[in-house]
């Protein structure tokens, strides 16, 4: 066991990651000078974890834990490692610990939200996402998408719209909301969202085609044809060289086949 830990500490696979050789060598030298310095093991563990050398990372975290169990970030990083290696229950223990020590640790909060989600604890996950989104000054769209995945469709749409209000008209949030709106039969809301996307886009035709598809699926044939015709009109307004592009030619043919008429 000791041998395994020692092997893990030194990270046998550094040759597969040439870029970290220098960094490891630098930390190794520091550890040689101060073998009792827990933060150095944490730093080396983090380095290995970034390169998904989980065994070496864990061995270094364990050593750091032996030397200084309350080292800042240690519990969070151990939680991240456990989650990445599929040990969600263990991850939750570490992340609970991290957040007890540092309640404002946004990274730990997001990791715990994901851990709860992995464990199927949707309400707990949602609460952590709520807290993370409230705390983050510039949350990535992914966080709104992850939270939306935990919510009933209606609440998910509201959550996504909250993201759009905060981050701007982010297409990935709109796309998820569109799918949910259609699943709820809110065709007018979905059509309005597509209108917004078309209005904001330099190339309106593909959004108008989506509008037509949406309405066609809902059985609103005349409106679908109108949308396809609007898409054809948008294509007509493009310069000739763009109209001649293969994907535009293909789209034009599809629109005509679906009942769109040229202006």
């Amino acid at each position: 066991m000791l041998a395994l830990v020692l092997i893990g500490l030194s990270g046998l696979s550094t040759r597969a990651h040439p870029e970290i050789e220098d960094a490891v060598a630098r930390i190794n030298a520091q550890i040689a000078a101060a073998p009792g310095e827990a933060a150095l093991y944490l730093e080396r563990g983090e380095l290995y974890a970034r390169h998904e050398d989980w065994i070496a990372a864990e061995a270094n975290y364990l050593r750091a834990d032996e030397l200084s169990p309350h080292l800042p970030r240690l519990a969070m990083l151990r939680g991240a490692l456990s989650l990445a290696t599929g040990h969600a229950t263990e991850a939750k223990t570490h992340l609970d610990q991290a957040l007890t020590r540092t309640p404002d640790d946004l990274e730990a909060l997001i990791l715990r939200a994901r851990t709860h989600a992995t464990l199927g604890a949707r309400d707990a996950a949602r609460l952590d996402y709520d807290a993370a989104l409230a705390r983050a000054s510039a949350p990535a769209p992914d966080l709104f998408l992850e939270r939306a995945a935990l919510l009933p469709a209606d609440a998910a749409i509201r959550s996504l719209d909250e993201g759009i209000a905060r981050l701007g008209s982010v297409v990935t949030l709109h796309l998820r909301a569109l799918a949910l709106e259609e699943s709820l039969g809110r065709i007018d809301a979905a059509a309005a969202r597509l209108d917004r996307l078309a209005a904001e886009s330099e190339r309106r035709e593909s959004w108008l085609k989506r509008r037509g598809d949406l309405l066609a699926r809902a059985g609103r044939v005349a409106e679908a044809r109108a949308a396809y015709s609007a898409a054809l009109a948008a294509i007509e307004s493009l310069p000739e060289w763009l109209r001649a592009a293969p994907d535009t030619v293909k789209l034009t043919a599809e629109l005509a086949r679906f009942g769109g008429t040229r202006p």
Partner: protein
Amino acid sequence: MKLRLALPCLGLLFALPALQSATTIIRGPYLQSAAPTSMVVRWRTDFAESSIVNYGTERAQLTSSAKAEGISAEHIVQLTGLKPGTKYFYSVGPAAAKVPETIKAKTETTKATAEVEDAPGRAAINTFTTPPPVGPAAPMRFWVLGDPGTKNAVQAAVRDAYYNFTGTRATDFWLILGDNAYPDGTDSDYQKAIFEVYPKTLATSPLWPALGNHDGKSANSITQSGVYYDIFTLPTRAQAGGVASGTEAYYSFDYANAHFVCLDSHDSDRSPDGAMLQWLKADLAATSRDWIIAYFHHPPYTKGTHDSDKDTDSGARMNDMRAVFLPVLEQGGVDLILTGHSHVYERSWLLDGHYGKSPTFDATQHVKQKVTGRADGDGVYRKPRARTPHFGDINIVTGSAGHAASATKPPALNHPAFYLAINEAGSTVVDITGLKLDVVFLNDKGEKRDWFTIVKE
């Protein structure tokens, strides 16, 4: 980094003589998020003070002014209402609010004077040129640096080789492809590796960065926090063109008739269902530009200081960029892909459809035009003007702006996707003139070690 509210106003209303000698500029100024009618100017002072930029189209008449609310040592001011394709003179900080008589008197500035004025810590008058209107062609030159931030003599030599090469031709903007500041992408690393190495270019040419693994040591993409996100102001709401990504981790912008896409190959979700890929599809579908250029850190192909065939290398990020993102980029009609990470220069044939490991590479299938792309050789690459999926793109790994691979243990450099692979320090220069795109790889001695041309018809 979010902008504080900027308040553009006319006139020199913000003269604060008492503060003129109180602070020193210790970083910048540097230019961010350039758009035809707006520019973000950033700088850092040793003490908090007002954030003011005075600007104008004449050196002696900085008659417009913009400021951000409050006082700060980290200054972020957005200039709006600018004219596209126009040269502006500008000066930052309260000390600059009043144009010194000595500067007013100058109608012509020699290069030597400009260098003195551009020295860090001085209240200087710098210049920038706003991007031209989006859509119509306009000549552009941009400089591409992969893995530059070593802070060593090689980095300086690569920089100076480019400065000698470009001479008086302005750099319209520049890209840094990640691993911008070794070893850990800390604020101190950035200070020494970027801000103290390229002060002149930072003050005059907008910088568009990508996140690398070393930058990722001090930054977090999901929370958009940490040094990289603190230092750079990047468009999240399509302020400079393209489609809103909602994050500074990946974004796009337009310059004249070219569309640029920056991806985060290090720290954002790279899965097929992930937000970044969904955004990329929408962004590519929405552009009408003649040229599409993508840049990010981890190369789809390399046999340099990294090996894109090894799943264990770099957490399979190179695999992801090749297998997940490259098909979407090629479907979207990308022309040029610029990456770093591997500290060499590798340049592909005009390729399409190679998404596996190197043993699966089949030149008869994946090389779309088997020429070197050289007008003075066997001919340039030719593509249709209209965006055409899978017509071929050039992949360039240009990750040697700070150091090349070891000369004593040279890398294999034998990936079959590449026409040319060189283990030399250097940087890449791209010129676009209408429907012609010229690329040069310039080594640290100033030698042109590769060049090619793509023409659209």
